[in-house]
């Protein structure tokens, strides 16, 4: 096991339960914070995984994930905003 794969596993095993915990408790806005953390952890994990397996073609996945998690978060902020 190379250090990149080990780091990726540590990041995923440590960060994803944290974000799941935050995304499953509290108000909708509290949950959204957990969702944002999940997006960051997932994107960084995929960067590390691409390095671990030596496949640079996999790098398109974290790039798209970063963009889509941003767009998704903005949609959620729009939907969670109070309506007058």
């Amino acid at each position: 096991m190379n250090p990149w794969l080990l780091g990726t596993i540590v990041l995923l095993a440590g960060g994803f339960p944290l974000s799941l915990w935050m995304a499953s408790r509290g108000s909708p806005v509290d949950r959204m914070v957990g969702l944002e953390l999940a997006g960051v952890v997932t994107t960084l994990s995929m960067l590390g995984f691409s390095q671990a397996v030596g496949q640079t073609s996999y790098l398109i996945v974290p790039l798209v994930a970063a963009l889509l998690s941003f767009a998704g978060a903005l949609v959620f902020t729009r939907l969670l905003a109070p309506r007058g």
Partner: protein
Amino acid sequence: MTTLAVALFAAGIAVVLVSGTAALRFRRVYDRLHFLTPGTTLGAPLIGLALGLENGWSLATALILFTCFLLVVTGAVMAAATGRVAAQREGLLARESPE
């Protein structure tokens, strides 16, 4: 170079995990956003720098650095948008603000 890259990678992972753990300890959404910000503004650049050092000057490095740049920029925007929605829901901010 590999040792430095691995050290930077470990530091980036530590920043993300510590900021996530710190955010979990607080109940208010503003505190959580405050403690999550280092994960994107410091953790992501450290990890991108580590992978860039390991790969050298290449197209892969450019893609990695661009992805980390996106995380830095969008993380700040998402935190601001989330804080704004939380303030609107608590009545601290006008509903139509800043339109």
